[in-house]
């Protein structure tokens, strides 16, 4: 079990000091059982073939002071049969909110999403990703912050001050979906303040007619580390008998982001772009642009079929190269709109530089109003040793999860 960060501990300790004098708040929760089946033998004999796990998520909120103040807590935990690192507990949210006449304040752990596209999330940078949960980057660790929000006639303005940083947590030796080399326990930081560097961000969000737009800027510790091969002595984390491990290096960056979505009848046109400045590397840019076209009430049924196409570009090279540097993603979103809320999301992408492919299928439906089943399958077609996804070539998997909501 990973220990809670100091921020999360502080939030837990502080909770009893909030007043609960008015009516009880609302609680929402689920528990889930998950199984992952891998189609192929693992690359390393140390890796287990399949895994099962149990998870739980509980949310609580309480409004008081005539709904001008709120406290909210979301806790998530998972116990995994194979990976001790994936057995983890996290406070996704633990914050206090107060509304004032001209602005609002949030203080504590929060989860923030920025972006419009489906195949990659470029501008979304406030939270660290919980990559142990899912490689899609949509699960996140709670981020401590002071957030100021002000709705003006000319848009929504948000300021973030983030006094701590949370490192990515990586799968352990026995787990699948990991790099062949171990990642050292000790990360290194460009900033001599380490994980205590104070990060800042600002965003503006507005809409004009069919256009929804946002501009954002972030200055601070990059959420995505660079991986530096290291042969330091005494690294007990090494997966194999060699001494080579990867060391996560967190650089300081300045990242400016833009999102645009035009919503015109059945067409959604989407763009996310970032310009990123990093010491020793200068300025780079990345973008994802595409569309989603929906066929509503397909064949006079209740179902809607969405067709997705997005092109991904990123000019960072070398150890900074990303998976989405010159790729086309095509997808289908099938919402059956039946009584059990059945839905299917299928995305296939092709990398034009390395000629690799990636396929993701997600299928979900309710069984009753309280039970839901979800299936997820991912396939990595990568026989090019130079390709970023080569390390995952044996890790095609299907996952089933059953959830009970309360």
């Amino acid at each position, binding site marked *: 079990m990973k220990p809670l960060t100091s921020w999360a501990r502080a939030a837990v300790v502080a909770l009893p000091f909030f007043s609960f004098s008015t009516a009880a708040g*609302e609680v*929402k929760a*689920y528990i889930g059982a998950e199984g992952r089946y891998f189609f192929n033998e693992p690359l390393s004999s140390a890796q287990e073939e399949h895994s099962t796990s149990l998870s739980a998520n509980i949310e609580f*909120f309480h*409004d008081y002071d005539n709904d001008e103040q*709120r406290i909210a807590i979301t806790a998530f935990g998972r116990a995994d049969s194979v990976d001790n690192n994936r057995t983890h507990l996290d406070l996704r949210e633990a914050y206090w*909110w107060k509304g004032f006449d001209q602005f*609002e304040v949030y203080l504590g752990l929060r*989860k*923030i*999403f920025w*972006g*419009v596209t489906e195949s990659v999330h470029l501008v979304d940078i406030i939270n660290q990703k919980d990559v142990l949960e899912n490689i899609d980057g*949509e699960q996140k660790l709670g981020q401590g912050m002071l957030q100021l*929000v002000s*709705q003006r006639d000319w848009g*929504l303005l948000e300021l973030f001050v983030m006094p701590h940083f949370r490192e990515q947590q990586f799968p352990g030796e026995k787990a699948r979906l990991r790099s062949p080399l171990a990642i050292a326990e000790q990360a290194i930081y460009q900033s001599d303040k380490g994980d205590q560097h104070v990060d800042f961000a600002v965003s503006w*969000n507005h*809409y004009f007619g*069919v256009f*929804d737009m946002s501009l954002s800027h972030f200055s601070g510790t990059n959420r995505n580390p660079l991986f530096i091969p290291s042969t330091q002595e005494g690294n007990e984390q090494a997966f194999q008998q060699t001494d080579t491990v990867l060391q996560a290096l967190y650089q300081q960056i300045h990242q400016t982001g833009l999102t645009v*979505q035009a*919503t015109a*009848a*059945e*067409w*959604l046109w989407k763009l996310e772009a970032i310009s990123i400045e990093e010491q020793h590397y200068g300025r780079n840019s990345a973008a994802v642009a595409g569309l989603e076209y*929906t066929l*509503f*009430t397909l064949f006079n049924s*209740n179902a*809607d079929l969405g067709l997705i196409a997005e092109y991904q570009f990123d000019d960072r090279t070398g150890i900074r190269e990303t998976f989405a540097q010159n790729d086309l993603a095509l997808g289908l979103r099938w919402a059956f*709109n*039946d*009584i059990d*809320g059945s839905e299917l999301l299928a995305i296939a992408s092709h990398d034009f530089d390395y000629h690799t492919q990636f396929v993701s299928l997600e299928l979900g439906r*309710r069984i009753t*109003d*309280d039970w*839901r089943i979800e299936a997820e399958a991912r396939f990595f077609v990568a026989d090019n040793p130079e390709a970023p996804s080569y390390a995952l070539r044996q890790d095609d998997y299907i996952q089933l999860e059953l*959830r*009970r*909501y*309360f």
Partner: protein
Amino acid sequence: MNLIKNTLFPFLTISSLYFASAALAETPEQKGLAIAREVDTRDLGFGDSTADITMALRDQHGNERTRKMRNRTMEVAGDGDKSIIIFDNPGDVKGTAFLSFTHKTGSDDQWLFLPALKRIKKISSSNKAGAFMNSEFAFEDISSQEVEKYTYRYLRDETFEGTPVFVNESDPVDPKSGYSKLEVSIDKARYIPLKIDFYDRGERLKKTLILSDYTQYLEKYWRAHTWSMKNHQTGKSTVLTMDNWNFANGFTDKDFNKNSLSRIK
């Protein structure tokens, strides 16, 4: 989706000249339009409201599922209403919220808040004929529609369950509508709809909506507590119950934007 307005007809700023023309209307089209405008005018000025919604979905075999929602609506001078719907069940969609700005002309603006990802998505409002929450209500049945979006024709006087009514035909202007026409029975005394027959694109009777249990609020505004929709073609039905109406909540634009949507519980 604007479930709050109990009428299917929108607001229109109208001069007293229109009242005069209503009385003197000669053609069925003029009389139909005048009735629609009068229905609309009588609901002007309600300000804002909230209500709790329970939707019972019944299939042809009598199986029933229940959906619960909460609604907040604010009247906007010179345009369609702003509203938010918060979904309270089933468990996997609990906390999902839907923000809608309806407009007199042009497409409505609609955003969805997905609580698991904390993501707000602007969504297409073209899905007029699609089913709302798998119910027998289409999105266009429950959205605040504007006078300009229909053409009207007065058909006849009639009695519906003992109440004298006008029967008014409304023809959707939008080709994306799932209907060729609606026949609306309007209480002559109160100018509120009591029954609506919906005809599909093939001119066949598809659904009938009965609006009942009307209560008057603020000594002026009538709200139906029960909306009962029957689909004649499939045998399915949906009964939508709206309770705990509250007016004069003091809502402002700040209660209906992407920021308030992201905070909604």
